[in-house]
Structure formats: C-alpha cells, structure tokens
C-alpha cells in the first residue's frame, strides 16, 4: 500500500517563518526548498521497486522517546510532513505540541491534528514494555535516553523493530591531542556520557538495526541548554563576555534543524545500518569567535571580551561558561559522504535564526544570572586599579 507524500519544491518548511520580517526570506525559501529536494532524493533511492519487496509502504509507525522540548519538536514535524505516523512518548509535563515562532496557524493545526501521544514514564520499564508491545512500532527515535537499561524494555517490546535511531553524543569521545574526532576514534568509557556509550553497545549486541547520531553542541530556537542564550543575555544587557583562559579554545555548534534533517535522512537508509554519525556544523569556532558570532547573528555591536583564570575563582555549583574548557569538535564528513547530508546553517545565520525565532522575541529558558560574571569582573576591576 504505497503512500507517497506530495512534495512541492517550494513547500514551506516547518520553520520557514514567512511571516517574520526579521528572517531573510531567501533563507527560509532555501531551507524549504533544500529540505524538499533532499527528502525527495532520499525517497527515490529507498522507494522499493517490484512486488518482491516486503514493505511497499513508505509510511512508518514511529515512536519518539521524548519529542516535546527541542530536537523532537523539529524532527516530529519533518516526519509528520513526510507522511509517517508519529507518536511522542512523554510524561506529559510539557505540552505535547506548541506552535513554533513563525509557524503558520494552518501548519500548526495540521501537525497538531496528526501527532499522537503516549503518556508514560520511560523509567517505568514494565509500562514501557507492555505499552510499546501493545501498540507496535516500526521505528524508534530515542532522543532523550541516557542509560542502556532504559532501552532494554523497548527492544524487548518490539522484536520486529525495523530501526532504532539513537541520539548519542560526541561527548563520548576520549579527549585527544589530535582533532577533529572521527567516528572511529577512541571513546571514553569513564566520560560523563558513558550511558550513551553503553546504550550504543547494547544496541549493537542485541542485533537490532540501529543508527547512532553523535551531535556536538546543539543550538537553535527552543534550546533548553543555555548555549547561545548565555551569550544573548550578556549582549542584551550590554555586559562584557567573560571567557575562561585564552579564548582560543575551539568548539563546534550544530543547528537543531540540520540535526533533525540528519535524523530523517537515516530513516530507512540501509547505509546507516549499525553506523555512528557525527552531526554538527561545517566549521568550528573559538570561544572568542563565538561571542562575536552571537553578536553578529543577533545584531549587537562587537562585544567586550574579558579573559580570566577559572582556577582563581570558586564558583560553587554555578557554571561560569557554557562550554567545556578544552578543544572539542568532530568531523561530519562521514555523514556528508554516506548520507548526502550537509548542514544548511552557517554559524552566524544559525545564530540569527535562533535569535530571531526565540531570544529576540523575548523568550528564553533560563533567566539571566550574572553572579559568576560579577565575581570575575569585580576581580578584574580590582586588578586594574
């Protein structure tokens, strides 16, 4: 029962904010068009030919673990637009759907009418197993899993699962003097993200068709991790940006929409079977450079940057800077080469997108807290005088 979703070349992507005067229309059209083209290309390659194929249908029954906060918000829209049946598994603490800034009422209503919800706590393994077994799903997107034990009931419930797509993290890589990280690099079994590693190992050992995506730092509208938001608060307040040590540490940001597209591109893609992919932006950036890029993206003047030695301070439990104080970046060439995926957002454009659709509209997740800044700046002032 083949079901094709009609794709119009200039179809407005879920995040093309044609109504926003701040977003350059060329970018939104490009996003929409490029999105359509890339999805069309992919469909052409995996659309089954001939009656010998078991599944003639392109549409999948998909379950997203999570999906109401950040990545899933964009991913679920793409999947619904592709014609899949998408269910979100959440506790229901956050609203199941929210209209995205710049999203038309019609698009939102359409999405809202199609998205399904399975309410539950994924830590209740029995419930996960029975509810998933009862419903049956073709594909799982695990966007919020942290520990391997959380994934076991899902695999137990769905012996015929076609694909398990996992959101892992580039944080699993062992710190190295040689960068960027490639997917084949050594991983750190002791890292903060070892649960992600253990999950990848579990998936592999269970013989399921799995794909693991390792993002670096994710940014974009609705980010609940104060990455760009941290800079925007300071820029808006006209405050200097305190950067630890030299400021030449290199990090890497990947736009959430590009990440969502990558997640869609591995769906039903035999090349992605049992593969790991780094997904992030095409270029890396220094801490100082990121401060300047945030200013450019948001339309602020170039900021004053203050460097400090973190060892001279006791910040207690507070985080004085949103990035790990080291070089940290990964190569995305495997995904580019094997999946034909490429990030659409450059850094400044991506930060502009985030600003225009989120912080610039007055929304943010964490209120400004300049406690650690004041500690740093206070000391700097003392040293100067």
């Amino acid at each position, binding site marked *: 029962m083949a079901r094709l979703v009609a794709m119009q070349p200039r179809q407005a992507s879920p995040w093309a904010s044609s109504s926003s005067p701040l977003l350059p229309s060329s970018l939104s059209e490009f996003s929409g068009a490029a999105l359509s083209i890339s999805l069309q290309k992919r469909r052409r390659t995996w659309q089954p030919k001939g009656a010998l194929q078991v599944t003639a249908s392109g549409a999948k029954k998909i379950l997203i673990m999570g999906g109401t906060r950040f990545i899933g918000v964009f991913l679920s829209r793409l999947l619904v637009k592709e014609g899949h049946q998408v269910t979100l598994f959440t506790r229901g603490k956050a609203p199941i759907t929210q209209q995205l800034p710049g999203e038309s009422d019609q698009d939102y209503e359409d999405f809202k009418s199609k998205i399904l919800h399975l309410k539950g706590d994924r830590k209740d393994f029995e419930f996960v197993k029975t509810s998933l077994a009862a419903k049956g799903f073709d594909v799982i997107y695990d966007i919020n899993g942290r520990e391997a034990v959380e994934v076991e009931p899902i695999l137990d419930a769905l012996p015929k699962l076609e694909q398990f797509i996992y959101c892992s993290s580039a944080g699993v890589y062992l710190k190295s003097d*040689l960068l960027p990280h490639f997917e*084949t*690099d050594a991983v750190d079994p002791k890292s903060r993200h070892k649960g992600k590693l253990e999950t990848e190992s579990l998936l592999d050992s269970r013989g399921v068709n799995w794909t693991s995506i390792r993002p670096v730092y994710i940014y974009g509208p609705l980010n609940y991790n104060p990455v760009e938001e941290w800079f925007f608060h300071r820029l808006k307040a006209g405050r200097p940006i305190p950067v630890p040590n*030299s400021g030449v540490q290199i990090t890497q940001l990947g736009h959430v929409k590009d990440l969502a597209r990558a997640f869609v591109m591995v769906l039903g893609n035999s090349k992605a079977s049992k593969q790991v992919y780094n997904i992030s932006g095409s270029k890396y950036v*220094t801490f100082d450079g990121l401060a300047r890029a945030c200013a450019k993206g948001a339309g602020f003047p170039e900021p004053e940057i203050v460097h400090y030695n973190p060892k001279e301070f006791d910040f207690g439990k507070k985080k004085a800077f949103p990035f790990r104080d080291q*070089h940290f970046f990964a*190569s995305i060439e495997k995904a580019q*080469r094997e999946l034909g995926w490429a990030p659409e957002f450059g850094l400044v454009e991506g930060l502009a997108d985030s600003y225009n659709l989120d912080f610039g509209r007055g929304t943010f997740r964490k209120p400004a807290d300049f406690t650690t800044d004041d500690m740093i700046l206070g000391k700097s002032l003392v040293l100067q005088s």
Partner: protein
Amino acid sequence: MAAAVTFAAPALPSLHSSSCSLPPLTHRSLSFVAFTSPTITKLSFHRSSRRFSSAPSTSVFSIKAAAAAADKKRVLVVNTNSGGHAVIGFYFAQQLLSSGHEVTVLTVGDESSDKMKKPPFTRFSELVSAGGKTVWGNPAQVGDIVGTAKFDVVLDNNGKDLDTVKPVADWAISAGVEQFLYISSAGIYKPLDEIPHVEGDLVKDDASHVLVEKYMAGLSFSSWAVFRPQYMIGSGNNKDCEEWFFDRIVRDRPVPIPGSGMQLTNIAHVRDLSSMLSLAVENSAAANGKIFNCVSDRAVTFDGLAKLCAQAAGRELKVIHYDPKAVGIDAKKAFPFRNMHFYAEPRAAKEIMGWTSSTNLPEDLKERFDEYVKIGRDKKPMQFDIDDKILESLKVAVTV
C-alpha cells in the same frame, strides 16, 4: 584507464582490517598508494584501522603494473632548492617513478651549490636509480634547460610569486603541457574566527601566491590545480619541524611554547602531499580548476605536538608557556610554527578525488625520532640562545 598501481595493504583478502600505515621508508623501495581510478580509490585504507594501529603493518604486498603507454605521464617538477617545501618534489617524483611515470626534476640553482648538501638533494641519486632525471638551472630558462623534451604535466614547487612562476607557466603553455600543478600555501588564507581553512575561503589580498593562482587559472591548460600545504614531516625534509622539539627533549631542556599552547596546526607526513599530487595527475579531469588544501586531516595543538614528540622519544616533557611580546622576542624566530590557529582541512581532495590521509603522527614521529638518533643529532652540541633568553626572563632554571 589502467595505469601503474602500487598497493600497500594489510594481509589479503580484507582490505579493511589491521594497520594501514605505510612501511617505513627505506633507502630504495618506497611503496606508496597510487590511486589510478575512482574504483581503486575505494579500496583505500579503512580509517579505523589506521587510528587504532599500534604497530606498523608488516605484511605488505605490492602489485606493480607497468603503465600502459597511453597512460604514462611525462612529468617535470620544478623544485625549490631550500625550505620546507623542497621535500615535496622529492616524494612526488619518487611516487610517480614507482608508478611507472617519467620524471624530470629541475632544481633551482647549481648542482654544485652548498644547498645541495642538505636533504632531500642528498638523496637525488635515488631518483636517478629509479629512472628519473635530475637537472639544475634557472626556472626562468626552463625551455632552454629541457630543450625538446616533451612533458604532459608540470609541477611548480618553487615560486612564491608571479615573477618566478610566470616564465614556467608561459613556457608550459607554449610547449603543449596539458596539466599544470602549483604548490601554493595555506598561509594565504585570511585568519578568521571560524576554523578550519576550507577551499574557497577568503585569502589575503596581498599574498603573492594568489596572483600566481589567478594567473594559472587564466591560461589555457587542459587541467590546472593549486595545492596549499602547511607543515610537513618526513625523511628528507630540508627544514626542521619535529627536530625543534627533539633537540630540546633529548637534552632535557624545557620546551618553550608561545601563548597558551592550544594553538592548532596541521602537520602532515609528506607522503600525504605526494599522494594527493599523484592523485591529481591520475585524475586530471576531476582535479581541473580546483584548489586543494594539501594537508593531513587532523589538527594538533602545539602542546599536543610537544607531547607526541616526547612520547616518540620516550622521554619526559617540560613545557614552558610564554608571551613573546612580554619577553621581547620575535615568535617567528623562537618557534617553528606561526603563533596562531593555523589549520586547514583537505576537504576538496577527499570529496573530489576520494583521497585519504595516511598521516599517523604518533607512529610517524617514532620513525622520525629513530632517524634523528641514527644520524647522531641527539649528540650534536647545540646553542639555545633564544630559549635561554625566554627562560631567563621567566626566571626558569635550566640544569644542563
């Protein structure tokens, strides 16, 4: 098109297992991978094995197919007589010769000059033994020097400006050379906040190499390509690279590193550069009109490189960071790499020609250290005037 193919691979049949690091360079035999067609490039080393290898491959086989007459190229390398790039022409010539091509190397200046007493020139007899020709002279008179000899490919690994390269390029056009390759420099990229330098990024308006690149593009070669290298290591190098670190490490001296030590650089084994150049010769259509960052695919920090050198030497490492301005010295004279992030990635070569990097710094530095000791440089008496000035200003005691 079947041209000469040389494989260096682990035990058959799987080409995706175990180490793929190339065997150490011996005096006469060099097994390089020569990619001759897209299908053959697919059989290149699997990345994972290279990253995890702890011992170089010992089971190597080589297939040498004589180049079909139509595919044999006649290559002229115009080579500088000194500096970091000198070694590129040597490796390139060796690789071409082992693939069955004809090679002439025209080195700037006189064969009898003192500059010829340094590597790689001291090893030019290897080129001759392998069937290559070595000549000397002024590249501005290249036509006179090579006479009626015909060439399909010319590599200019010499000129940094138009004055030097123009006569060679003009002659090549008039002599019917099909493919013109130029060694430029990744140093022409404009330093930006975003890293790495990628082909197509802005270059410095006043960089002399840029004028050469533009000039080449405007000529009517069937195929032209530009290669922008950074730093390289490898036997036969003319300019110190890792030796700077070894000199200090073996003498138990602190290694003074400017700034934070976090600056990124790109250190490639020169065989990576020659493999990229060879690939361009054998895929001249695909390479036409392209710029290639001629570098390895990994960055290393200054501190990281010092660490790897110490590990290769099996010695302790002490690093001292300093601010060149505060000490009053020119960092260019005090340290072998530019004092900033300087990191290009070889994206075009990978995407367009399916090239892969084989640089493995931990392994390669071990080989380099072995040679360093073999030639007795660890025992050579040395002065460290600039180091001493730095250490003095930082009040660091050096017990030698």
